[in-house]
């Protein structure tokens, strides 16, 4: 379960778009994967069974949409993972992990407060950190020029396998630099 191969197998079962290895020394991650949102709960279940616990959910606002990074760490044998989802800007709805990791509830509510991402199945409908009477849009970046494309952020380490459809989506052919090249540079 904890070996990299079995992890990659687990990600493959979740139809991962991208599975990447990372340099733990510089990036603090062992492995990361971008998976379709619908497979999050089943992947979470297998990770939970393998002794992983959810560290945090980090939401990133990019020009393609909201990239949610779920960080997991194994409580028996340290090795940090990142599982990423892409939620489209217009209708950011992703399934909730609350059934598997109850601690996800607060992380998800926090993400909903600040990015407006809707977590389908989160039991608590109230804002977590914002005021209860806060009435306005989430504090997002207003100017589209401030948004960086995912390819410019060097998120994907050394990809093992990349789904061509994802490659085309995240890295339109017009772009010159690939995240891989950037990481090596």
């Amino acid at each position: 379960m904890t070996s990299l191969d079995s992890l990659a197998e687990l990600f493959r079962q979740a139809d991962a778009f991208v599975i990447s290895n990372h340099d733990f020394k510089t990036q603090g991650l062992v492995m990361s994967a971008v998976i379709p949102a619908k497979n999050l709960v089943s992947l979470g279940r297998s990770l939970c069974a393998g002794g992983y616990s959810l560290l945090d959910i980090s939401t990133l606002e990019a020009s393609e949409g909201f990239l949610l990074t779920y960080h997991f760490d194994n409580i028996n044998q340290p090795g940090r993972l990142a599982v990423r989802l892409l939620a489209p800007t217009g209708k950011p709805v992703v399934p909730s992990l609350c059934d598997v990791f109850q601690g996800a509830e607060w992380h998800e509510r926090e993400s909903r407060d600040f990015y407006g991402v809707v977590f389908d199945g989160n039991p608590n409908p109230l804002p977590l950190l914002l005021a209860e009477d806060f009435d306005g849009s989430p504090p997002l970046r207003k100017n589209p020029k401030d948004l960086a494309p995912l390819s410019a952020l060097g998120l994907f380490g050394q990809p093992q396998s990349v789904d061509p459809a994802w490659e085309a989506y995240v890295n339109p052919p017009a772009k010159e630099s690939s995240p891989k090249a950037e990481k090596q540079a």
Partner: protein
Amino acid sequence: MNNLNFINPFSVREDPGSSVGDLYTQNFSRHAKTGTVILNLGPQHPSTHGVLRVIVELEGEYVIRAEPVLGYLHRMHEKMAEVKTPWQFIPNMGRVDYLHPVAWNWAQVGACERLAGLEVPERAEYLRVISCELNRIASHLMWWGAFVMDLGGVTPILYAFEEREKINDILQIITGSRLTISYFRFGGVSADIDERFVRLTREFIPYLRERLKMYKALVTDNVILRRRLEDIGPMGVDICQRYGATGPVLRAAGLPRDVRRDIPYGVYPKLDFAIPAGPSDDCFGRYLVRLFEVETSLNIVEQALNELPDGPVKMDKAPKANWKLPAGETYFAVEGARGQIGVHLVSDGGKTPYRLKLRAPSFCNLSLFAEAAKGVLLADAIAILGSLDLVIPEVDR
């Protein structure tokens, strides 16, 4: 997967009906049984240590449901990081956790260094360890006093403050401040230690060891304290895993997880120290783990002082104020007094970080309170809350 109970916080809310109180109380009391009392502990309450608010449903003296309400001290540190350069953001970290600011310093500075690939001189690494561990002792002592005060023992906190004052005096020499410390710089630390620092620290270590013996005799072995803590609020590995609890909570559950050992940073791999695991997953276990960690930290400080190498405390060509982070992503974790502090840093190569996510250990530790407090007495719920060692600014960030 239902979407029915979701109220979009940013749109018109459904009317909660006849119940009283604010939105949180109304939402909480919607599921209340008849014949119970809904009690708001906080935001101003003697044992919530700041502005935490916990809504509890009481049946007699028994808590049948509890829900923490956060956000009273939310200051948007993560958003601030996006408009400040990494340099300008260092002082913010001291404000996130006022009891262990040095660890938060380290988390942010370490993440930036790791992303940029900066090499820190060895002397600076040792100084980082010394300051971080001294600060950890101060934090644990402060917790110890406040925790016993939650249980009704008013005196120990003043003893704890006395030691903490000594540590503040020591740290003040190198950091220049006593509470919101900003000691770390990219590629090193801001100041070298001097003769007085070494002398005071060397005096302090045996002094505190003696005092810890006294605390054991006076407080830890007290029969009332033991009866109040033993077998109260068990939090096993399972609940810690589901809620992502780290630090002393997880270690008391029996797993020796410590970032200093598991994912080494700084010069911790060169130092010899013990990671406690157990002895029990109740409040008393967490109490003992933290007191043991004070001794561990004393040992680390002593070792680090003995092995302190000569050299500069800042790398050559250390980044200047207009320094730009290279593009990329990193996750850097350090062991704070309350658990694993994580910084998820994403940069697009601009002047400011593109995204800085702070993982606060208290946040995850507090999230398991609702489950742990089910069915316990009100006084025990207070003990459980205290045993989690919460720092509310860190929970709310």
